[in-house]
């Protein structure tokens, strides 16, 4: 009987707690290792698995199964950002109207949509559509032992399954984010000018004055960063799914939870890094 077994038998509680911590540490290490391998294999995926990458790009843009019926990820992203853009009109217009400054709703749309609302909403929509879809696919492959079969055939499964999805996610996010920005601007403008009867000239004047083009570019950079993070998290949970049919469902749930938290943090830190304390913002124009 080794010393470790004796200690484990003498202090069962402490041993269990320590084992729990060690298990957590191992899990974080494995995740980091997976992310490292996925990113390192991106070059491989681009050169060797071009067709698979193209197929995934097409699939992510349009969606599969029941999602394709309602228009795929494009429609979902567009719809969610339309709803939050309309919020700017409903909440912003009425709040500003209570201090008789409702003329500034265009400014609110240009400022809050670009910096705050669209990145967060797009992150949510991406995690729900493209991300959760990837987890469901990879999880089902893992449970059906298809991933093991790939390995046996000598195909690098991480490059073929995870890296290709990261590339596809990053490419798809650019047109999706264009849709997101356009929908949020259009919805805010429509709500303010059509429903609350503000003149379009007033709205457009303040909107155009305060829309900072570099902010838009940074906003796209945020979208890019969160696409990478979301795809990495979701492929990891799908790739390591265990426990039969229920396990796939649980993996999707866990992946959505993790990626929402992680992408919110990424957006927060990227915004703090970009805008800093000064805020890169001058009321005088």
């Amino acid at each position: 009987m080794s010393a470790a077994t004796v200690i484990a038998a003498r202090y069962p509680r402490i041993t269990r707690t320590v084992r729990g911590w060690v298990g957590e540490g191992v899990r974080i290490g494995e995740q980091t290792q997976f992310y490292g391998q996925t990113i390192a294999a991106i070059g491989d995926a681009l050169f060797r698995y071009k067709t698979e990458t193209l197929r995934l790009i097409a699939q992510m843009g349009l969606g599969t199964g029941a999602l394709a019926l309602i228009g795929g990820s494009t429609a979902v992203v567009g719809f969610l950002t339309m709803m939050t853009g309309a919020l700017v009109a409903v909440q912003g217009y009425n709040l500003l109207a209570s201090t008789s400054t409702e003329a500034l709703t265009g400014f609110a749309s240009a400022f809050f949509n670009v910096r705050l609302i669209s990145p967060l909403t797009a992150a949510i929509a991406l995690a729900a559509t493209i991300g959760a879809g990837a987890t469901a696919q990879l999880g089902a492959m893992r449970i059906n032992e298809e991933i093991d079969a790939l390995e046996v055939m000598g195909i690098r499964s991480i490059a073929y399954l995870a890296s290709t999805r990261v590339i596809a996610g990053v490419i798809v996010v650019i047109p999706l984010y264009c849709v997101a920005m356009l929908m949020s601007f259009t919805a805010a403008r429509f709500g303010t000018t059509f429903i609350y009867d503000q003149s379009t000239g007033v709205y457009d004047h303040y909107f155009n004055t305060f829309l900072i083009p570099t902010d838009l570019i940074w906003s796209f950079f945020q979208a890019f960063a969160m696409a990478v993070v979301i795809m990495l998290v979701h492929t990891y949970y799908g790739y390591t799914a265990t426990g039969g049919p229920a396990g796939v469902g649980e993996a999707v749930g866990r992946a959505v939870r993790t990626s929402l938290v992680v992408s919110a943090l990424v957006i927060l830190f990227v915004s703090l890094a970009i805008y800093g304390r000064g805020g890169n913002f001058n009321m005088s124009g």
Partner: protein
Amino acid sequence: MTFSAGVAKPLRAFGEFFTVTGQTLALMPRRPFAWREYLSQSWFVARVSLLPTLLLAIPFTVLAVFTFNLLLVEFGAADYSGAGAADGTVTQIGPIVTVLVVSGAGATAMCADLGARTIREELDALRVMGINPIQSLVVPRVLAATTVAVLLSSLVILVGIVGGFFFSVYFQNVSPGSFVNSMTIITGIGKVVVAWIKAALFGMAAGLIACYKGISVGGGPAGVGNAVNETVVYTFVTLFAINIIASAVSVSAIGAGV
């Protein structure tokens, strides 16, 4: 033929969803109420949602407060940052973070659990034994999601305001006294009640969608995965739609500002 089949499928799913909703609502007051299932489900949803709630509420409010304070500092009105933080948290961030957590954490877990039972034919077994799975499984789950959503929204508001306070005071140099004083300028009990009503609606809708998707799963592991994926997408879409309608109604009912 293919066209009509393509149109009929989503329509049928829509109809089935409303059937399940109607049955659930009709069976809610019917005895015996599954207390044990209700309590264990509430505990389950609360357990999976608590940590994501805290972790999501903080970055969301900090980001909103940061952006809003930039504006207020530019106007020379940094003293009012508490008003912005309170209003943003109570009217929008509270309900939206609750939505994300309830559908991203609670509804997915619920759908995965029910989906696995459907795949293992446990629901059919229940029906054979003369137990209505809607009454014994769906009703307590929907009610549990509603209860937990209301509780969570209060937690999100609390955590959000505290997070906004620390960020404003220690990073953006707003004076703590004026932050606390200005909190109640445009946010009153009316808005808090509206936030609770929204949260209850979200919880109920998310629970119904998750349970419908869970009990109509078919096709093995890929089927469960897809059902959970669809649950997330449909709940997000529905809840954002409910949020905008509820916001518009509350704005015209109790007003948006001072």
